[in-house]
């Protein structure tokens, strides 16, 4: 362990790199716990109102673009895969692979955000942005095909939950993209190798977590109630 004590990345208050790594990883996990609770509040609101207004939620959900949602799910899963590979390359000391994988992850993250922006724009065109979020352009559900038993005002509730959850998810994606840019910069300068790669690892944890949130958002927002259309 002695040779590690002199590693340039070792911070003064840690005994060795192993301790520093443990602290970093545990810290990120504890942070992810707070994120779970943060999103948990919105998932709770979703559960509550979906059980209360199933028809309205299904009607509103069916108006979302299933192809775009599915593609985005694929994009995000692929980005999680490349992120895992980036960590793998860092662990095994493949510097080129590390840089390529990080860049790919970054690119896929941006693709996701781009597709999300297209979807948001579609909703804007359809007057489906709830409340007065866009001044002078009030919410209008007349474009949404209502299933029997669905009340119009509850459609607006769905769209607010949709925008709140996907919006908060997108904010986390943007933070992730920023994080990865920094990591990519340092990776390009050769900072991470088999001995020290904790920043890559914990950025990966964050990225996968954001992916997991989407794994739940996709069926809840896009899929439930699709079958009622037929």
């Amino acid at each position: 362990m002695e040779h590690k004590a002199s590693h340039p990345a070792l911070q003064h208050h840690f005994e060795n790199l192993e301790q520093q790594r443990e602290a970093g990883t545990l810290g990120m996990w504890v942070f992810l716990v707070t994120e779970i609770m943060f999103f948990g509040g919105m998932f709770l609101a979703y559960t509550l109102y979906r059980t209360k207004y199933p028809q309205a939620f299904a009607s509103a959900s069916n108006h979302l673009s299933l192809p775009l949602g599915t593609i985005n799910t694929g994009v995000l899963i692929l980005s999680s895969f490349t992120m895992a590979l980036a960590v793998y390359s860092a662990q095994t000391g493949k510097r080129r692979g590390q840089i390529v994988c990080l860049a790919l992850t970054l690119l896929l993250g941006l693709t996701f955000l781009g597709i999300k922006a297209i979807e948001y724009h579609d909703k804007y065109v359809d007057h489906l942005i709830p409340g007065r979020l866009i001044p002078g352009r009030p919410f209008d559900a007349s474009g949404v095909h209502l299933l029997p038993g669905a009340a119009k005002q509850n459609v607006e509730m769905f769209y607010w939950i949709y925008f709140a959850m996907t919006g908060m998810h997108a904010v986390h994606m943007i933070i992730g993209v920023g994080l990865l840019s920094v990591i990519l910069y340092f990776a390009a300068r050769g900072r991470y190798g088999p001995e020290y790669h904790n920043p890559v690892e914990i950025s990966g944890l964050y990225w996968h977590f954001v992916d997991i949130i989407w794994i739940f958002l996709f069926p809840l927002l896009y899929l439930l109630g699709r079958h009622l259309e037929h």
Partner: protein
Amino acid sequence: MKAPETFEIPAAARVNYINAQYGLKSWLLTKDHKRIALLYLGSITFFFFIGGLYAMMIRLELLTPQGDFLSSTTYNKVFTQHGIIMVFFFLIPSIPATLGNFLVPMMIGAKDLAFPRINLLSWYIYLLGGVITIYALLAGGVDTGWTFYAPYSTTFSNSYVIAAGLGIFISGFSSILTGLNFIVTIHTMRAPGMTWFRLPLFIWAHYATSLVMILGTPVIAITILLLAFERLAHVGIFDPAVGGDPVLFQHLFWFYSHPAVYIMVLPSMGVVSELIANFSRKNIFGYKFVAFSSLAIAVFGFLVWGHHLFVASQSVYAGMIFSFLSFAVAIPSAIKVFNWTATLYKGSISFDTPMLYALGFIGLFTIGGMTGLFLASLAIDVHVSDTYFVVAHFHYIMVGGALLGYLGGLHYWWPKISGRMYPEGWGRFSALVVFVGFNLTFLPQFVAGYLGMPRRYHAYPPEFQVFNVLSSAGASILGVGLLIPLIYLVWSMRYGKRAEANPWHLPGLEWRTASPPPTENFLITPVVTWEAYEFAPPEEMQVIGKFREGTDLDAPIIGKS
């Protein structure tokens, strides 16, 4: 293993964390947990006195039954702002961010917290939240009550709800980061030999507090965010117009805000555990019970929030569950109280200022806790809901519990923090004044509340005046009692007697380094070979990295007399 060998420290070693560097920049950009603790100490003291000012305005208004000093709208703002400032900007950061920040690394034998930069960041976030909230107060104030209930806060209030909410949202992240830092530090940075069951109970309490901070705070963050959007753009999760339920806000709010009470009182219990054991010079009675009861409070604390909704159209079945669970949370609290009492038995008790506060805490916390059981009973709660009984109850917990523990801890560790002794006579005197003033303020409120005086009104029926006069009189005594320590603590920083490394002659790790400690806390990494509260013969309790004997700066060996 033997304690570290004696060796002479070169003159440079007498550098401590305060004089290690000079200049404003060395403070504002510090990553030393001890300096950050002092930054927090300054800022929470500032907020405490703002909150206290509002309290004085409330008590002044309630001196007479007529609403003659403040108009009803102003009064709404005054009690709201008193609550917001005291809860979010004083009580929640009070012990963890100052004493905890200062002592957690030192008590476990670490050089710093795991993430020093995040620690500094948390102070800046706290400050930013504070500045935004103060802006809200100056721009026109908030009148929703510190609870921000929808739909009043989302739709009807004409005050600065969003700014105040934003301030709380932001300062919440400082609390999250502090909790995260503590958890990681306690897990990964304990010194060799510092096993979990050798940890001081202060650490256990802070671990439990951190759990509440990281699990609860994110929920209030998202809730306040949703509330702000709802007010801003009339989108609605809490808005009945689109099928929303305002009571959902209360659920989400109290999911955090009830456990938040435990953020305030758990660290205080940690302080009291230290004080009771150390000033009785005895090992704590039932160490593991006290340690695990902290965790139990952290867990059970999350199961009881519905008792705030007994009269808010919550289902009676949920009410029954919450009522039962609220009674359950009394069990770990009672374990603590009984174990403290049992620790006192046959101890060699010394009644120094910190101990006076600790004993006060036990009594007042017991009253606060027992009246909490009144409120947890469904039927009685309907009678006393939204009366001064509730106000008195939670002040007994928050002031009688949290604040007294904070003051006790501040006095106890003051020699370590500042390197100076506070004047003991003044300390005991002010502890007594605080105790008398506090009880005079809040005991009458129990009676007034039980007789039916509602909270949050600036006027009241004349038959309640006698209680309010008593209460206001008590508040002025309490105010004086709190001003005295402020004066003599500041005074002692310059003129107090220099403190030895271990002025109380105690075994804890924080007493085995100099007062004030060096930047890295210990000159050599300590190896812990003793149990918590193990009162060994004085000559066996060594200062780690001894200083030269006979110098006036630091007394090297304990009990050399």
